[in-house]
């Protein structure tokens, strides 16, 4: 690496470059989606994908696999990846901390805790019931973090510490409960592996309104974040109602993250890595960041889900693990290549 790369501040890509990147990622997503429909345990041909949608035969096993198993899985991966990517971008923008991931508001830990308690006390075993419990647990934990973080006068530093403390406490509590009860562990470990295995259309339809609502909050949130990232005093001076803005953005993060957790289990890595990748490509304008984070998140998640089906990883490795395996080296490479651009 030569010396001058470090001294040159990160160039802000022009709109042209951004447009090209956006086109490339959409194209990549379409190609990957085709692959995701094509490959799996049961081999299918390109023609069958086409005919499964144009001339569906209810008794053709290939058509059933494509439409009932691979399609929901693909949609689930796209939704989860883009939600987590956006939530991560909002979280890192709001706290101005590159180490913040959307789980830091306690959503993942709260959801896990809720699931563990319900298995232990009510003896629930059906993963379909866990959707609402996970959502509820996540909301409770997020509320706790918000109150501990100082309510409507929250500042990022305190919020981060409160979030880390609550998450760690909840995770440790659920871990100790699991060590105590073997039966709970047996049910829980399948939920926590999560991934997009047994996803059905009904689950996706249940959660779609939540994701849409989260998105509706995230877009105005990203507009305010540009001002908020200059520092709170500066933002206040620019006419932003800081407390309200932070509340709305926090709500968006909680909803996006909660919907994902209840669909695919706690996936931590995507929300942490994706915003960094997005920032490297699209610069630090939050409006573009949000788009790119959604796109790259979906791309990463679908790729991870696809790679996890390779026989090398036992044929069914969880998508969150695969996302980290792919995303980590890419992040290191980008940081080495492009130098440092701050949040």
């Amino acid at each position, binding site marked *: 690496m030569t010396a001058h790369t470090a001294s040159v501040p990160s160039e802000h890509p022009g709109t042209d470059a951004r447009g090209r990147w956006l086109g490339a990622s959409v194209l990549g997503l379409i190609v990957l989606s085709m692959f995701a429909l094509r490959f799996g345990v049961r081999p299918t041909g390109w023609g069958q994908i086409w005919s499964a949608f144009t001339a569906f035969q209810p008794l053709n096993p290939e058509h059933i696999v494509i439409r009932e198993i691979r399609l929901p899985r693909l949609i689930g991966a796209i939704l989860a990846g883009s939600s987590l990517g956006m939530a991560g971008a909002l979280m890192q923008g709001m706290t101005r901390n*590159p180490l913040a991931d959307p789980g830091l508001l306690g959503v993942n830990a709260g959801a896990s805790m809720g699931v563990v308690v319900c298995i232990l006390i009510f003896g629930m075993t059906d993963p379909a019931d866990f959707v609402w419990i996970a959502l509820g647990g996540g909301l409770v934990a997020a509320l706790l973090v918000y109150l501990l973080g100082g309510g409507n006068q929250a500042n990022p530093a305190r919020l981060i510490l409160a979030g880390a403390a609550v998450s760690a406490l909840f995770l440790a509590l659920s871990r100790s409960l699991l060590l105590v009860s073997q039966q709970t562990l047996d049910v829980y470990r399948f939920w926590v592996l999560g991934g997009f295995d047994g996803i059905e259309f009904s689950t996706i339809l249940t959660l779609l309104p939540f994701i849409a609502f989260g998105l509706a909050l995230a877009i105005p949130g990203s507009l305010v974040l540009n001002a908020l990232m200059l520092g709170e005093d500066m933002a206040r001076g620019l006419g932003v109602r800081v407390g309200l803005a932070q509340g709305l953005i926090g709500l968006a993060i909680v909803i996006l993250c909660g919907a994902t957790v209840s669909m695919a289990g706690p996936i931590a890595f995507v929300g942490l890595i994706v915003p960094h990748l997005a920032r490297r490509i699209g610069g630090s304008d939050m409006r573009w960041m949000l788009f790119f984070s959604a796109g790259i998140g979906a791309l990463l998640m679908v790729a991870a889900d696809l790679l996890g089906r390779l026989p090398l990883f036992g044929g069914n490795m969880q998508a969150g*693990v695969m996302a*980290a395996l792919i*995303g*980590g080296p890419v992040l290191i490479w980008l940081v*080495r290549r492009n130098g440092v651009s701050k949040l």
Partner: protein
Amino acid sequence: MILRLPFLSLHFSQRAASVGSGLFLALLIAFVASVQLGAFPLSLQQTWSTFSGNSEGVQRMIVIEHRLPRILTAIGAGAAFGMAGSMFQTMLRNPLASPDVIGFNAGASCGALLAMALTGDFVLPGAMTGGIITAIAVSALAWNNGLHPYRLILIGIGASLTLMACADVLMTKLDALTAAEMAKWLVGTLNTRDWDDVFLVWTGLALLTPLVIWLQFPLSRICMADDIATGLGLTLSPMRMLITATAVALVALAVSVAGPLPFVAFVSGPIARRLVRGGSPAVLHSAVVGAIVTLLADIAARSVPIAQLPAGVFTAIIGAPVLMWLLLVQFRKGTL
């Protein structure tokens, strides 16, 4: 209060001194409680008589052979974690930073699992090698005409997450029994420590602590903006390198005797800094806080009646509420 000697003068904050002695007292109480509690409870008198040397065999054996090594290891490991965490947080100016940031723990987990999967043994050498190689690789990758905190954090995240995922994959390659055993080690446990562990951790601490005490002075300046720190006469990159190396050595020391105990390194710094106030790095206070948290976690692990739980489960259950309480109290007072 300022102490003036012919060759240097030191600034002492009264609050730091009183908080320090308070923490020390708490550690002492936890130590005595830890000696007494357990499957074979001892009274205060019995404890005293054991230490003064006139007691019968069983009692002496339990205290000297079993409890003391474990307790002293816990204190040493906790102190090392506390100092390392506080140094990383100050240097990187990020309250979320801990040694995990440089990938040490992830590398150690991966190395331990790899050693187990390939040879069926050598967990500790594997962990040390993995951790140190990762730390060196992350620093080398982040070095680009100087060591920049933000780049170190990003590269550390990338390496750490990837290695964690590798560890998950490796975990699925082990058979169920070994996997359960490894899961326990990876959480961090203090079961069956002996005097060798105690000597190892305390010798290491004795060697590194003077360096840490000296590093406090640059640390209290390195947390300012780069320009100001340079203006105050710090050569930033070499100093960051030295701090990183020292912190990694401390973590390696602690992991080698107690496994990668989670949360201790993260929580000690914020608790100590909030108790001391005044914006100093409070590295030594963090060491005592880390020791208390680890010791209490070990006491909890021993007192829960069901099968030996690893101490790593309890570090967060003990550390997190304290941090939450501090956040709440100081918020009310408006001193945060």
